[in-house]
């Protein structure tokens, strides 16, 4: 079904593009949100991705490569949004009423873990966040990540290693700060 929609949208059928956009945007939004950690920035990244899909789709020779290509586009849009946001300073994050937030799967996991992860993850560069999301959320292999990012597999492995190390370092630093605050209190 998706292949048919891709081919029809590539020929310029807006109805097919409409259906295709609705079919893939959930996946794109999920990735964008996890990189950006902001609902509205993720919406903007998805919108930009969909517009690029419409504009550039005729250049995509192989419809089977559509999924990888759209991952690449949404990662690029998300990184661009994150950089723009950084230049613009801090923002207030509001969650829309209809936001679909799943409950935590493990009720026993300490809330502190998630808060620490959130803080640590936000300290990473957008590119580091993206590669962690592709592996740990999208479940992509190193070869798939390399394909999505358009880099050699070795480079993807190296980036993943450094991103993981940076996150661990951020978590450890955060843990030390929390402990120091505890001693001062």
């Amino acid at each position, binding site marked *: 079904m998706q292949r048919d929609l891709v081919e029809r949208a590539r020929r310029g059928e807006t109805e097919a593009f409409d259906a295709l956009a609705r079919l893939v945007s959930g996946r794109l939004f999920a990735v964008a949100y996890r990189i950006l950690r902001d609902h509205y920035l993720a919406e903007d990244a998805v919108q930009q991705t969909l517009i690029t899909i419409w504009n550039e789709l005729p250049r995509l020779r192989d419809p089977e490569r559509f999924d990888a*290509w759209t991952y690449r586009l949404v990662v690029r849009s998300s990184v661009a949004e994150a950089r723009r946001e950084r230049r613009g300073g801090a923002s207030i994050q509001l969650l829309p009423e209809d936001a679909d937030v799943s409950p935590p799967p493990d009720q026993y996991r300490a809330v502190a873990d998630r808060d620490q992860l959130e803080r640590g993850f936000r300290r990473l560069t957008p590119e580091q966040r993206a590669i962690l999301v592709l592996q740990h959320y999208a479940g992509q292999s190193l070869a798939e990540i390399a394909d999505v990012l358009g880099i050699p597999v070795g480079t993807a492995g190296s980036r993943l290693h450094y991103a993981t190390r940076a996150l661990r370092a951020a978590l450890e630093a955060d843990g030390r700060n929390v402990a120091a605050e505890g001693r001062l209190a």
Partner: protein
Amino acid sequence: MTTLNDFDRVLGEWLNEGPNRVPDRPIDLAVEHARSHPRRPDPIGFLRPDPMARPFRGLGMSLRPAMILATLALLLAAVVAIGVGGPKPSVVLPNPSSSPNPSPTATASTGIIVDLTVAAGQPQTVDVIDESGTLLQASSGSPTDGQGFPSDSVEVMNIDANTLQLGWAGYPCRTDHELRIGNDPRVMTLVRPPCEGVTDSIGVDRILILHFSEPIVAAEVAITIQ
């Protein structure tokens, strides 16, 4: 913090928390963009690189010279075609028709044609040609009776961060305007053909609403009238 041994599991579970359903707004805006930017024929599309093409390696290297040769062949064919055509004889073109039905060339456009709502007089259209790629939608506003806008300039104001309202006045004859939005969307040119024949001397307002994909500040917009 959880021990580092189950770091991957904890990170994966944490990333799985969060929204997976996208609101309709970004999809609707993208579809609007697609409808207002229909795909145009691209005669050299086959020469454009595939965004997911593998890097040139091994046998693939032979493709690069092939593409260069194809481009050179096209350029050569274009030069020959221009040379064979030679200088064009001068042709006396007839005056534009004053018929209310525009000629096919008048409507041959690559932009969005907006039927402007007018309080009085003949139909008005504006052909919006966007070179910036940031225009998502163009539509008419609803002017009131009489003339409220200047006739020698265009008043620009923000409706919201991404939306501009353009207002100007003109005689109530049939007019097919053209609005060119440059590579920088803050630079625009409004082409306003003069009225033909007899017309009412009282001006009427035109209002055009432009919705962009990114914020645009009315005070920074410069519009030239031709």
